[in-house]
């Protein structure tokens, strides 16, 4: 009896001690937050018209951040101190039957939803409001799904870390824009040409970097990506420089114009013209392009070249000693990834009607790579999920009008603009998701070749490659 009481006393003493430590930690975190914020948030330098800077103080913002840091650290301590249930350590747990079940059907369900998406939105929201949803969510996300799948060939399958993927996107976009505005070629002729040109650039830029590995490869591809952008900025007679290329011809419906003019598709089909039609058409075009990317990747994984990519990712030296031509293997991966990047780029140009080097910055490359890594490298469905999450979330942050109202009415802050926090939250989300799930959303991989029985393996058993 006394023993149990003593034990309980000891436990509560330990608990109060633990709470003391937690509070101490939380105070430390608040202090740290104060030091971090001290000049950069507390003070705001604004210049007047004469170019003189004057300072304004914002102590409340710093106070709020310190309180958040205190509460956040305390919550983390509480979470870490929760009673730990002993779970058997699982290094590479075989996925349960339910996981494979979901893996099998989520793709089919997703596909059906994707094909019905325009009709669902039109039915739910009406033609006016659905335009935005199809355009800035449907089409925008699908472009990134396609780019993610394209880069997945290079990074996820072949294990070559490419930080300049946006270069091929730019090549595709400028290829269509220039061919269409100079020679008046139609989108459907330019699309494959843009892809082939981008693939050609992929080989051209892939050749010099064949010997490089790991981070060196990443940096050189980054340099190439930036060089292409800087050339586009500076070579004004060719690309228009910063001004870019405007009035790029719109997409045609199998040769029929989709603009509001006589002889367009509406006259041909005897239906009422609506701008929604061309958006829905664009949606299906990018959906088909993305699905083609996926289909080609899945098929190629079963061919010798796809197996060679994955072998290269796992161990380059073993690969070479088994007689695989690593040069051709790497170049095909670069070329194919670039090809799909080019297709996506020319779609981007036809959808926007205007392109400039601003659309092809390093941030785009970083976003696409983040989609691939967050999705779980090499996992097709994971990449698609990550694109929906990142790009959809990024677009959703535009829709924070209610928050602006709230800040205005409740806190009396008149010019609070939630949209300006988009980039900040985007960067933070990348860090947080990486820290929580370094292996990506989808943690299992299906091997493309197997003995007797197809078994999913843990993502942590798959190497990320050295090339």
């Amino acid at each position, binding site marked *: 009896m006394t023993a149990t009481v003593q034990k309980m006393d000891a436990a509560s003493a330990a608990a109060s001690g633990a709470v003391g430590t937690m509070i101490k930690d939380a105070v430390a975190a608040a202090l740290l937050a104060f030091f971090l914020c*001290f000049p950069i948030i507390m003070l705001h330098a604004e210049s007047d018209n004469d170019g003189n800077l004057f300072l304004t103080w914002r102590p409340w913002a710093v106070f709020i951040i310190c309180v958040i840091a205190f509460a956040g650290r305390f919550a983390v301590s509480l979470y870490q101190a929760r009673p730990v249930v002993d779970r058997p350590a699982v290094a590479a747990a075989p996925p349960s039957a339910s996981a494979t079940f979901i893996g099998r059907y989520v793709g089919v369900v997703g596909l059906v939803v994707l094909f019905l998406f325009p009709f669902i939105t039109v039915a739910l929201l009406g033609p006016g409001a659905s335009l935005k949803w199809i355009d800035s969510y449907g089409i925008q996300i699908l472009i990134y799904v396609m780019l993610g799948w394209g880069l997945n060939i290079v990074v996820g399958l072949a294990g070559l870390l490419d930080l300049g993927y946006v270069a091929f996107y730019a090549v595709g976009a400028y290829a269509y824009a220039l061919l269409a505005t100079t020679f008046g070629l139609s989108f459907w002729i330019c699309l494959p040409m843009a892809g082939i040109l981008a693939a050609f650039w992929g080989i051209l830029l892939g050749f010099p970097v064949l010997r490089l590995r790991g981070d060196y490869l990443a940096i050189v591809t980054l340099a190439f990506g930036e060089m292409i952008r800087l050339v586009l900025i500076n070579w004004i007679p060719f690309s228009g420089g910063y001004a870019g290329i405007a009035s790029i011809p719109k997409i045609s419906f199998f040769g029929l114009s989709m603009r509001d003019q006589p002889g367009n598709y509406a006259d041909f089909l005897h239906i009422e013209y609506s701008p929604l039609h061309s958006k829905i058409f664009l949606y299906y075009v990018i959906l088909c392009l993305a699905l083609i990317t996926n289909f080609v990747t899945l098929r190629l994984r079963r061919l010798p070249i796809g197996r060679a990519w994955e072998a290269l990712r796992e161990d380059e030296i073993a690969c070479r000693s088994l007689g695989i031509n690593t040069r051709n293997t790497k170049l095909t991966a670069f070329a194919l990834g670039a090809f799909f990047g080019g297709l996506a780029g020319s779609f981007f140009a036809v959808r926007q009607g205007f392109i400039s080097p601003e659309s092809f910055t390093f941030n785009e490359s970083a976003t696409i790579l983040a989609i691939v890594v967050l999705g779980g490298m090499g996992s097709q469905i994971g990449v698609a999920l990550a694109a929906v999450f990142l790009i959809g979330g990024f677009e959703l942050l535009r829709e924070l009008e209610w928050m602006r109202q709230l800040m205005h009415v409740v806190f009396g802050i008149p010019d609070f603009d939630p949209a300006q926090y988009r980039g900040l939250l985007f960067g933070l989300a990348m860090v947080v998701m990486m820290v929580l799930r370094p292996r990506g959303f989808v943690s299992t991989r299906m091997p493309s070749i197997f003995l007797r029985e197809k078994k999913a393996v843990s993502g942590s058993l798959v190497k990320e490659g050295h090339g």
Partner: protein
Amino acid sequence: MGNFLQQLINGLTLGSIYGLIAIGYTMVFGIIGMVNFAHGDLFMLSAFIALLIFLVLTKILGVTSLALAFVIVLVAGMVLTSVWNWTIERLAYRPLRGSFRLAPLISAIGMSIFLSNFVQVVQGPRNKPVPPMFNEVIHFSAGGSYDVTLQYKQLVIGFVTAVLLFAFWWLVQKTALGRAQRACEQDRKMASLLGIDVDRTISITFVIGAALAAVAGVLYMMYYGVVNFSDGFLPGVKAFTAAVLGGIGSLPGAVLGGLLIGLIEVFWSSYFSTDYKDVAAFAILAITLIFMPSGILGRPEIEKV
């Protein structure tokens, strides 16, 4: 000749700034094999911190001695930027240690996006004009017709860079801390077996890198007289180029690479065209890596099977 001398002075000034940033890249890469993409943005953040402290000193506290204000800004900037980098390492990189190679890279890219947007949100997107300081100029007339000038700012930059580089070189070469740092660079597991606190050593590496980036930030702010939230990316990439050119992992290499990149950029702008100066820097990066992957002073990487 006059033009050549002038460009030489300008190039060495710019190169000193690149060299200071490059050390942060090269040390972090040496110890944990990670390209710290956020380093360029940290440099930009430090320039903002320095500007704000400078304004507090001159406008609110009424410090009139420019030299005193400059020293205080330098020290405070180094301390606060170090606190930032320490926190970033703690929150964004340390949990990913021992995870696969791409995880810290993506985390660093996210951090870079976060930092530039953070500064944009809290300080506004417009350029901040910095109050001019050290504006006196020394005139030479080396070639006769061409007036070669050496600004006081450039002297200050050269002096501060030289002193701090010497101090940090001493720190890394001669102290127990530096020995621990170099030991971790060679073999982290063995170092921890011999009783070195590896996590602490890595934190200190980030702190040193941040302190030098802060020096570069202060000098950059003073030299160019304007700061903007997007100023981090290009100097960051060029400093990384410098680190690679000099041989990544090597401290003298980083400084040498920085000076070379600064000189190449300035001479290219002067003799060819300003438009393509960034292309030239990137082309040098690519060419160096392709033909000389271990850089000028780096050790070749030997792969054991």
